[in-house]
């Protein structure tokens, strides 16, 4: 898993699948070239000695959560208003389970 590995078309298509993007083959080739160049540039991070350096996971230390009380939010209608498709008071999606199999 050396980071020197170039990102090829197959790698792009694999990552595209993970990110739910349907890329055409020509698009995947162009992306492979561009991403490889960026990945090559990023490899300069390997020049640094990072032993014993803790990662910065985020900048908000001691995040303050609000009290766990119910407060007014969006109404059911407001929440559904922007949905591309809603049925029976719910978000509607294409069938993803085949009933009866």
């Amino acid at each position, binding site marked *: *898993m050396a980071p020197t590995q170039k990102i090829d078309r197959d790698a792009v298509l694999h990552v595209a699948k993970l990110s739910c993007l349907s890329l055409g083959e020509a698009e995947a080739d162009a992306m492979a070239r561009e991403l490889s160049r*960026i990945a090559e540039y990023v490899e*300069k991070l390997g020049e640094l000695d990072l032993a014993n*350096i803790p990662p910065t996971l985020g900048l908000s230390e001691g995040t303050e959560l609000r009290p766990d009380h119910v407060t007014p939010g969006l109404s059911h209608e407001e929440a559904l208003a922007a949905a*591309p498709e809603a049925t029976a008071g719910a978000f509607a999606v294409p069938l993803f389970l085949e009933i009866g199999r």
Partner: protein
Amino acid sequence: MIETWTVDALAGKVQRGELRAVEVAEATIRRIDARDPELHAFLARSNEGLMEQARAVDDKRAKGVTLGPLAGVPIALKDALCTRGMRTTCSSRILENYVPPYDATVVERLRFADALLPGKTNMDEFAMGSSTEHSAFGPTRNPHDVTRSPGGSSGGSAVAVAGGMTPAALGSDTGGSIRQPAALTGVVGFKPTYGRVSRFGLIAFASSLDQIGPFATDVRGAARVLGAIAGRDPRDATSLGEPVSDYNAACGESVRGLVLGVPEEYFGDGLDPEVEASIRSAIRGLERDGCSVKKVRLPHTGYAVATYYVVATAEASSNLARFDGVRFGLRVQAPSLREMYGRTRDAGFGMEVKRRILLGTFVLSAGYYDAYYLKAQKVRTLIRRDFEAAFKEVDAIVSPTSPTPAFRLGEKTADPLAMYLNDIYTLPASLAGLPSLSVPVAPTKSGLPIGLQITTPLLREDLALRIGAAVEASHAGVNEP
């Protein structure tokens, strides 16, 4: 005719009853009508809403109610900020027809401060870019030279101010998206400390970096707008509870005795000579005002671009998973759920957004996480430590905001890496979460604006504004477009 188009002047006159908010609203409409067909700063406008807000402000005053600190001040909003009942697109096809059911906290706070909200401004799609050319709805043009980019991603907000259409605007800054367009268009732009301003209702790009901040014609205007939007918000768990200082008072304080750090790493290869000359001259001006200047080292600066493009894309790939054609935004119908996701995202996202989602997913994927993402997070620690060490010796760090003046439209779009490298001076403060202000200094011989970047320790917005106001005082009128 309204003479002084600044936040302070307008708010003061409206509060004292010397000017009606309705007159300001009418002037705003005229100004946008005159300039925007050429500049394309605005994606959406609501003249009716604007007039209604203005009448409400005038009614309040007539009834003897004390007006808010932004009374009658028109403020343009980057289209990444949710506005109740008003289309919010993030310059993306995937949100082309999205009408949010709520206001972002900053929008609520501007309304509460009696500001006027004329419309939504253009940006790089999902704030991914440095030129506003990655907007799905066409680029914004720089008022100083319309063949050039205004920078980005908050280019529309910068141009609303630089083009004289509104005296202030809100943008968001993830790696420089307020400061760089401010520098390239000759206005003031301020990224506050990470967490100083609530991000509730800001469409997320990279959550460990995103921060909302103001653009304004002058430093005092930015200070006043920041004062109105800053502070704890229970709806954003990362927002900070520390008291908000008096930013306006800070703008009048002397800079005598302050120690300014000049980082060698920001004056190397790739810095345009005219930019360097202008920045060094502005620093000499601060010395004349009584500051002392000291060389400092920020040795990991050269790793900031690589670090940023790993961390930010990783976070973006996760944040943008919510755009799936189910709850809001575009849907391209397909027989199966999986295909519906793919076709919707394929049709809805532009190339730069896809590039970053793919890169972000790649650096998080099995086998690459340690080599890229974890490594970048460790280098981020080194970049933060650079600043911590420097701030033991100096009060603030001064540098160019951008290595070059505004580049031509189309000049960098073919090469994503060249575009990324343009952010070299703004990324480190973002990675460290520090407040960072860009103020205009003397322009190039051909009249292109240049910005001085002032970076201060966490929560020292007051200090950045104080130095910025001093710089401004010695550069009055240098950037009239």
